[in-house]
């Protein structure tokens, strides 16, 4: 092997790492270091130690808020998967013009500011809102149903925001599946449900996994929707953190709560990746 080829070999092996450089720089310099500066307040102020964390864990409000946050995010994720899959599947199979109409509809909420959407939902769900007025006018109910200011309303509001992420993630994965795979399975005698379980679903899984990650982690940080569509019982972690930052001006405590959240999510993400690293890739499925 001629000498000159050596550096090319080394470069080729290092190429992925070089490609990763811009991202790593952005993450480390523009994100990680500044964020650590803020989070370090939790252990450095007002005096070095874990007092802020002790206060957080001892507070019964925060325990409730913690569980509410994770419970709501989990529900949002599961419901998103169920709602997104039919739409994504339909979009891969229909004509291009229809598909674009579907995407336009999916993007419409994307383009609407969150506060405006909540405003719209309020009109629909409140006691004197559209649903209640319609139900009563049709004689289906005699009194208004409490839809607004409940956990259901918060889940609905967040799902409405996150759904497009899930739809597009699943669509991207489904689009990459060779339709002949399904045909081949059927010609070999498998019926539709079996084809779905054994061929389509495993190949769509990466899309579902990606979407779930985006939706779950994204949902954890909501505070406007629980504040405006839920009752105080639906307070989520971002609400209490915002309170500490804006009202209490207690940034060390805010950092402590945020740190607990980040650690919890990191553990979940790590577990998720361990489980999911075995997800079949298209190449391996052949």
């Amino acid at each position, binding site marked *: 092997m001629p000498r000159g080829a050596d550096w090319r070999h080394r470069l080729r092996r290092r190429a992925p790492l070089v*490609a990763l450089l811009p991202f790593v720089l952005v993450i480390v310099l523009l994100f990680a270091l500044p964020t650590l500066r803020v989070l370090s307040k939790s252990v450095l102020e007002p005096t070095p130690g874990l007092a802020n964390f002790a206060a957080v864990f001892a507070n019964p409000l925060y325990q409730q808020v913690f569980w509410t946050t994770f419970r709501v995010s989990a529900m949002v994720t599961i419901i998103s998967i169920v709602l997104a899959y039919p739409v994504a599947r339909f979009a891969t199979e229909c004509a291009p013009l229809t598909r*674009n109409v579907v995407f336009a509809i999916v993007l419409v*909420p994307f383009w609407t500011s969150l506060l*405006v959407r909540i405003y719209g939902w309020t009109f629909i769900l409140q006691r004197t809102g*559209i649903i209640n007025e319609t139900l009563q006018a049709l004689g289906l109910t005699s009194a208004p149903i409490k839809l607004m200011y409940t956990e259901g309303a918060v889940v609905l509001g967040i799902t409405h925001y996150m759904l497009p992420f899930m739809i597009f993630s699943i669509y991207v*994965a489904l689009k990459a599946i060779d339709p002949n795979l399904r045909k081949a399975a059927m010609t070999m005698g498998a019926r539709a449900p079996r084809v779905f379980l054994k061929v389509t679903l495993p190949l769509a899984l990466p899309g579902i996994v990606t979407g779930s990650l985006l939706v779950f982690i994204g949902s954890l940080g909501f505070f406007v929707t629980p504040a405006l569509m839920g009752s105080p019982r639906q307070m989520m972690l971002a609400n209490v953190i915002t309170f500490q930052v804006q009202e209490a001006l207690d*940034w060390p405590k805010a950092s402590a709560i945020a740190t607990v959240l980040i650690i919890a999510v990191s553990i979940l*993400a790590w577990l998720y990746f361990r489980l999911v690293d075995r997800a079949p890739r298209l190449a391996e499925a052949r």
Partner: protein
Amino acid sequence: MRAAVALVLLFLLAPALIVVPLSFAGDAMTRFPPKQFSFLAYQNYLHGPGWVDSTVFSLTMAGTVMVLAVVIGTLTAYGIVKASRRVRRTLSILVLLPMMVPTIIFAIAVYWLLADLKILGTLAGFIVANLVLAVPYAVITIRNGIEGLDPSLAKAASTLGARPARVFVKVTAPLLFPALAAGALFAFLVAFDEVVVAQFISGSFAVPLPKRMWDGILFRWDPAISAISTIQIAITVAVLVMLGLLHRRGQHAQPRTETPS
């Protein structure tokens, strides 16, 4: 299944269906359904303090973030896919970090960073801050797309004699297009819609549209807000319908290809 799809789409549209008629209702002190018709909302938007400026600012900022995020996202996605298992796992967590940190904490962090860099209250500051938030979405989506690629297609093309650039342009990129487009879209929307960090890093002349809307809604509802939403919806619909029509024309020009079975 079509019924299910229709229901989900209706769910997605519902709030918008309320807001659009409201934008023609004048000052929103009336109940829904609105009892009057007026263009006050749109007049407020065009002549009001800074709505149009903010729109231009947000579009420019989000557009720049989108381009940068897709470039970095594609590089990173390729890097992750080709790297060793350990690097891959570390990067996977790293990519998620900006999404895991509560935005208001990042707002304070980036405030200090931009103050140090002396770009607080500027377009550049907003681009820096939103790039951090947008890149993870781009990386995750594009990586998903790359992992879904069939490597044998690219190999087939190159064994048939195509050079790597041509392979990329003719084979890889078109297959990656949905993922690239989705990544670009997510990045754009994350940057365009971002309001929490904006609260901290805005300046007198750098006020993105969501911040202006947010301040308006929390302190007093300005009818211009519903006008903006309607305009955005109209543009989205128009662009996508146009793309659909162009695509259809393109398809008629080329013969349909069939994948070899």
